[in-house]
């Protein structure tokens, strides 16, 4: 019977060094521990004022510091400053759009107030993105309110 040539008959130790195996196991444990805490959903807090039909209780806000955003269909955002005969412009959700407008307001006005109104055709994503922009640009005072017929008219008349 032919013999297998084991190359000199040297005894090779069968001890395996388990250190890398342990490293791997701990890496896996850490990975699972971290990913299960990361896939918990995040929340965004939203506080609304108390619903009241009493007009006198509604706070008076300084017009010059107020920017009104009207969210419309197709990710369009109409905005205007003040209340008397405002100039309505339109922008979108890109970086050069709404964020630029808001940053400019934050830089030029002390404590800007933003009033957010959404048309029925706007998507929920638009509302969440706008509230997010408030957090990103640092606008502290903002409110989500019901859209009025005057706003709908203003937006309809806008040439965009």
């Amino acid at each position, binding site marked *: 019977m032919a013999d297998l040539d084991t190359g000199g008959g040297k005894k090779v130790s069968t001890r395996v060094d388990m250190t890398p195996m342990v490293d791997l196991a701990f890496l896996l444990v850490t990975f699972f521990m971290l990913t299960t805490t990361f896939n918990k*959903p995040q929340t965004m807090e*939203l506080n*609304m004022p108390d619903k009241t039909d009493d007009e006198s209780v509604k706070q008076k806000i300084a017009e010059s510091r107020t920017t009104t955003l009207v969210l419309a269909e197709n990710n369009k955002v109409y905005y205007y400053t003040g209340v008397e005969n405002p100039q309505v412009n339109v922008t979108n959700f890109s970086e050069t759009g709404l964020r630029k407008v808001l940053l400019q307001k934050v830089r030029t006005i002390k404590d800007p107030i933003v009033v957010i109104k959404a048309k029925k055709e706007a998507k929920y994503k638009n509302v969440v993105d706008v509230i997010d922009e408030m*957090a990103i640009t640092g606008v502290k005072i903002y409110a989500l309110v019901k859209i009025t017929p005057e706003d709908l008219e203003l937006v309809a008349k806008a040439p965009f």
Partner: protein
Amino acid sequence: MGKIKIPRKSIALDMTAMCDMAFLLLTFFILTAQMKPQDPVVVDTPASISDTKLPDKDILTIAIDAQSRVFFGIDGQFDREKMLEFTASNYKVGFTPQEIKEFSLMSSFGVPIGNLRDLLNAKDRDKFPQMGIPVDSANNELSKWVANARYANPKLRITIKGDVNASFDVVEKVMNTLQDQNINKFNLITDLKAKPKVL
């Protein structure tokens, strides 16, 4: 001072035990990771930079999907049973103890009260068409569910899980329903997105 050279002996440690322990820990964490409760509807939430985590218990979830259907759910089997009893007496619908038990195991549902018994008795619940809970002012079932849920558990926190393409109209109706009950603080469930650099 003369350098005293300590003769170093090489120590070969047998790591097998450590490896066993590591795998035991791994198994423990995999098994105790909680399963996500099966939702009847897939909701794609929008992203936001907010990183406040959702609390684990005592939450009331109102889910609004892309077709603007409204789903409702709370956690806690006992609270679900109590809520169902209150709502059943509001709408004068009777539920058998078996149906109440089935209900307490459902994480969320989206059918008008009239179809709830059919849903509970359906053999294949996933295929049962769930049209959403009515929120219109004429028949606002959602407000009854929310009120009864809060009677059952006053500590409940309200969360709204809306789909990116849900029309704001329905979201507004839901928020008005909540505001009518003097609920003014809610949490909107969002995915995490990195905070963009603002110049």
